[in-house]
C-alpha cells in the first residue's frame, strides 16, 4: 500500500483529482455526518431552491449512526453505515460543492458518474471498526436537525481519520477492480 495521503477539509478540486482508488487517506479538519433522513431534507431544500443549513462547499459527509457516547467521550463507536441508501440524494449534493462521502458498500452508477462530473470522491471507512474510528473524532456537535436524534447532522472535528479511496474522479471503482484482481476462478 502506498504512503498515506494527508488531507484537510475543505477540499479543492485539485485535492480530490489527485486521488486514485486504493489510496490510503487520513482526513483532518471538519467533516459532517448525515444519514437517510437528513439527506432527504437537504435534497428537498435544494429542490425548492433554498439554501442549506450547512455550507457543504468542499466538504465531506460521513454516513454514520454512532452508538451513545459515554461520559467524557466525544462520540460513541462510529463506524460507517451502508451508502447506497444515500444514492438518490448524493448527485444533487455534489452539484452544489460536496467533495467527499464516507461510508461502506457500493455506489450506483449515477453516483459514480456524478463524482466524475462534479469532481468528488467516495471513501470507505472500515465497517465495524467503530471504536478505532471514534478515536479519530475529537469533537462532535449537532449543527442541524436535532429532532432527528441519532440521525441529526453533526459537525465532527477529526484527526487522522483513516479511509480508503473507492471511487475517484476518473470513474474507477475499487470494489470492482480489487475483486477482479484477487479472483481465482
Amino acid at each position, binding site marked *: 500500500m502506498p504512503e498515506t495521503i494527508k488531507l484537510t477539509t475543505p477540499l479543492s478540486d485539485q485535492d480530490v483529482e489527485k486521488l486514485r482508488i486504493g489510496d490510503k487517506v487520513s482526513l483532518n479538519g471538519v467533516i459532517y455526518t448525515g444519514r437517510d433522513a437528513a439527506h432527504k431534507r437537504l435534497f428537498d431544500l435544494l429542490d425548492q431552491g433554498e439554501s442549506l443549513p450547512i455550507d457543504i462547499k468542499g466538504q465531506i459527509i460521513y454516513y454514520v449512526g454512532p452508538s451513545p457516547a459515554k461520559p467524557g467521550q466525544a462520540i460513541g463507536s462510529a463506524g460507517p453505515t451502508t451508502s447506497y441508501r444515500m444514492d438518490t440524494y448524493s448527485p444533487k449534493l455534489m452539484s452544489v460543492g460536496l467533495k467527499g462521502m464516507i461510508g461502506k458498500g*457500493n455506489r450506483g452508477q449515477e453516483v459514480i458518474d456524478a463524482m466524475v462530473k462534479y469532481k468528488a470522491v467516495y471513501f470507505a471507512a472500515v465497517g465495524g471498526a467503530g471504536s478505532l474510528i471514534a478515536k479519530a473524532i475529537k469533537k462532535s456537535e449537532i449543527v442541524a436537525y436535532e429532532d432527528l436524534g441519532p440521525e441529526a447532522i453533526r459537525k465532527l472535528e477529526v484527526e487522522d481519520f483513516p479511509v480508503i479511496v473507492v471511487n475517484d474522479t476518473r470513474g474507477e471503482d475499487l470494489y470492482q477492480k480489487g475483486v477482479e484482481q484477487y479472483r481465482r476462478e
Partner: protein
Amino acid sequence: MREIEANKITAQVKRLCMEANYDLGEDVLKAFKDYYAAEESPAGKEILEQLIENARIATDEKTPICQDTGLAILFIELGQDVHLVGGDLNEAVQEGVRQGYQEGYLRKSSCHPFTRKNLGDNTPAIIHIELVPGDKINIKFAPKGGGSENMSRVVMLTPAVGRQGVIDYVVNLIKESGSNPCPPTVVGVGIGGTFERAAYIAKKALLRPIGSKNPDPELAQMEEEILEKINKLGIGPQGLGGRTTSLAVHVDLVPCHIASLPLAVNVQCHAARHKEVTI
C-alpha cells in the same frame, strides 16, 4: 429441583450484553491474525490490522466493537430441574437486555417494521429456549447487526441438486453479498429440517468457535470446500479485494422430509460477538 432467582438471570444477561459488545472472542482475533499473515492485498492487510486494533481499543476502553450493537439474540438451555423463582424467564431476560443496552451505552436498534419507530430499549430480544436434562441454565448471547443479517437467506432447494447444489448456493450468495455483510465473514449453513429449523441451526452454527472442526468428517470436509471456494472469490476484507472473504464456514445438518431440501445461510460479519454463562 434447584431454585434460581429470576433477578440473577437479569444480572447475568445485562453483563453478557456489555461484555459481548466490548470483547471480541480470542478465536476471532486469532483468525484475524492468521489471515493477516496470508493476505496478499495491501488494502486487505490494512483493514485486518485496523480490525485487530479496533478490538483492542474496544476491550481496553469498554466501548462497542461496532456501533451496530445488534438485535439481542439469546440461546438458552434450560435444565428441566430448574425452578425459577421471583419472576418469569422471558421478562427476566428482557429486563437484562434493557439494562445492558442502557447502562452499557449500546445502540438500540429494535423498531417497528413499517413505521420504523425505534422502540427505545432494544427489546424485544429474540429468545430461543431448549429444555435439557440437569439443573443448570446456560445462556448464550449473540448480538446481530443488520448489515450481515440482511444478506442471509432461507431457501427450499430441489432435493436433486444435492450436496453440490448446496455448496453452489452458499458460494454464490457470498459472492453476491460483496461488501455488504462487512467481510471477512463467518458463514453459518443449516441443511435439512424444515423452513424454520434450517434457519435455527444455521444461526446456532455461528456460535461454534472459529477454527473448530465439525465432528462429522463429511461435514468438516464440506466446510473446508466451501471456505476454499469463497476465499477464491477475491472479495476480501470489506469487499475491497483480497483473499480473506470468510474466516470460517460452519455447517450443521439434520434430517428433512423426503420431498424437500431446506437450506439456510446465516451470514455473520467480522464482529462475530457472543458470550455465554452457565448458572
